[in-house]
């Protein structure tokens, strides 16, 4: 058995106040829904990123709620251009920083982080090409996809990150169709396939873990992709008060495993020695899943278990000394 070192802070938010940066760079007065986990995720990510950060925001919930003129919730330089091109705009900004430093027009010793926030639609669907280009070219950018599993900004339409079986307004549960008809696109693995230095999943229900991962992404040179689970009470049909709980359940059931891949080496940052809870616990209190039949739940359970096992195997394999020595980790 290979010993994997896991960070300890993962689940103890009780220590959060002492351990989290106090500075708020995503300021209040934003117009996100009550209990919006994406807004919380941005707030936490900004704590990690710090003041010397340029944020590029794709069109989407977070862009809309944080910048209705003349108000801005951004205490850092921020730019929104369009829906599908946040990674492209970030590529341009990062290139500009690089050349301006080389030409001495920016202080070369000053580290400026470039951080992208985009939703799942802007990442898994319309923005995938731009993201792929950014990762392939190796821009030193951290791309955070806040995944609320549908086009929430336009009123809960299905995206390719919408989970199997979920009801959305374009994948409605009707008499002959039962919600989203295909499996959620695995974006973190697409990012891993680009061979970039850092890929992670995160969830605001685990704030210290999220903060640590965003920080880590900036320590490593090159592109980083962080897939952030963002519970959407409005779109999922759950009480706003349960936003954090729902995220925790997603992790505990294995529906959204928390892991990171650093230079190809996998690590489950939150592992459950006693095993995962059944997915039904996660599914049952969400309105978007309430039409699911036992057969569909079984199908989902099998898929989740298989994916979790695969991750464990990846962790095991990529931590083997022979792999690590060849991969130069």
């Amino acid at each position: 058995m290979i010993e994997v070192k896991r960070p300890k802070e993962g689940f103890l938010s009780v220590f959060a106040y002492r351990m989290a940066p106090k500075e708020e760079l995503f300021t209040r007065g934003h117009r996100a829904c009550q209990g919006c986990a994406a807004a919380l995720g941005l707030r936490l990510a900004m704590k990690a990123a710090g003041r010397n950060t340029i944020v590029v925001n794709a069109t989407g919930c977070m862009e809309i709620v944080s910048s209705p003129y003349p108000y801005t919730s951004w205490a850092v330089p921020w730019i929104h251009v369009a829906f599908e091109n946040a990674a492209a705009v970030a590529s341009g900004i990062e290139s500009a920083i690089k050349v301006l430093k080389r030409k001495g027009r920016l202080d070369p010793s000053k580290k400026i982080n470039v951080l992208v926030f985009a939703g799942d639609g802007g990442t898994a669907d319309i923005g995938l090409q731009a993201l792929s280009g950014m990762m392939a070219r190796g821009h030193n950018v951290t791309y955070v996809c806040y995944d609320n599993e549908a086009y929430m900004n336009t009123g809960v339409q299905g995206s390719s990150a919408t989970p199997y079986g979920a009801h959305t307004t374009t994948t409605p549960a009707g008499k002959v169709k039962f919600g989203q008809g295909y499996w959620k696109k695995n974006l973190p693995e697409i990012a891993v396939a680009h061979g970039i230095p850092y890929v992670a999943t995160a969830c605001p229900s685990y704030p210290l873990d999220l903060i640590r991962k965003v920080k880590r992404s900036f320590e490593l040179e090159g592109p980083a992709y962080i897939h952030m689970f963002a519970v959407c009470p409005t779109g999922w049909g759950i009480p706003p008060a349960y936003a954090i709980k729902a995220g925790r359940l997603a992790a505990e059931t294995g529906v959204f495993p928390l892991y990171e891949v650093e230079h190809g080496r996998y690590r489950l940052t939150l592992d459950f020695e006693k095993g995962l809870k059944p997915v039904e616990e996660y599914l049952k209190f969400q309105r978007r899943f309430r039409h699911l039949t036992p057969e569909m739940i079984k199908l989902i359970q099998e898929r989740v278990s298989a994916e979790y096992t695969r991750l464990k195997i990846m962790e095991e394999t990529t931590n083997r000394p022979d792999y690590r020595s060849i991969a130069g980790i």
Partner: protein
Amino acid sequence: MAKRRGIEVSIAIAEAAALAEVDVVSAYPITPQTHIVEHLAELVANGELNAEFITVESEHTAMSAALGASLAGARAFTSTSSQGLALMNEIVYIASSMRAPVVMALANRSLSAPISIWNDHSDVMNERDTGWISIFANNGQEAYDLTFMAFKIGEHPDVLLPVMINFDGFILTHVVEPIYMFDKEEVEGFLPPYHHPYVLDPERPVTHGPVGLPDIYTEAKKQQEEAIRNSRKVIDAVWKEFDERFGRRYNAVETYKADDAEVVLVTQGSVTEAAQVVVDEMRKQGRKWGVVEIRLWRPFPFEDLKKALCNGSIKCAVVLDRAISFGGPLGIVMSEVRAALYNLSDRPMVVGVTAGLGGRDIRFDEYVRMFELGEECLKEEKEPDRVIIVGLRE
């Protein structure tokens, strides 16, 4: 001193961008623009140009990255054609709205379908209302000069708008011809260092591209409209300064033997000089013809055009369109010329023709036909509603 060199026009355009010491080039290959960006990539690869060359995965990203770089404080350049421009369209509009002074060299090419890599003006006309300053070059020298000056115009603090320089694909891009090229010392001080008053700087955070609720959108658009209208002063000043320093004069509307002409052909781009040759030849036969070129397409030079066309001599202006507005007036430039003169009592007749679509050569006799069409309309005292296609097999 500027050296006269035989050079492919594409290479010269790339050299103009290099002369401006662009910081970021982001571009995607498309015929017939490719030689421009290939040459810039080569200059960067050889260390002759200290810039970041971003090999983007689409034109959409090319413009997005250029916009990002521009607002991050870098002088940004891109180049495209046809479908590439059509794909960028969304960000082309946003770039001017966000006041990013990107410079784009546009090798004019037709739009699909059927797919055609050859020259006409469908691509630029499709972007007519995107809020860019848009200027036409007729030959390699002009393409070189105008590209270099575009940075000075767009980046001027009173302007802060992107500029596109149009030159005909293949017809100009792939031609080797003599061009006077500047050396660095010679243009010293002409182009100030890049400066944008609201860059993405952690020392002074700004929010770019906020949500424009109905309360604000109209005002934002009005402000943008004023900006491009006011850019005219800067454009004229930059062209004047260039003339004073380097001895080549550019005007928003260029006229050729129009003073005593009865019929003029109104042109844009490389057909202008061909039309001049036709005028020279036919004047030998006593035909009083001339050429009026709309070099500055946006902001539209209303006053200059009125002055050029309502000179007391011109009775008919035949406008040569190189693109089609389907189901509309057909001729885009024709409509604009007609609209510009609409309320003038002494205006000439405006006749629209189109030719040279999708790379079809316009031959000498076809130019003659265009002028003659104008003469026929004068004789019949009838201004046709729609554009006549010249050189069509019927």
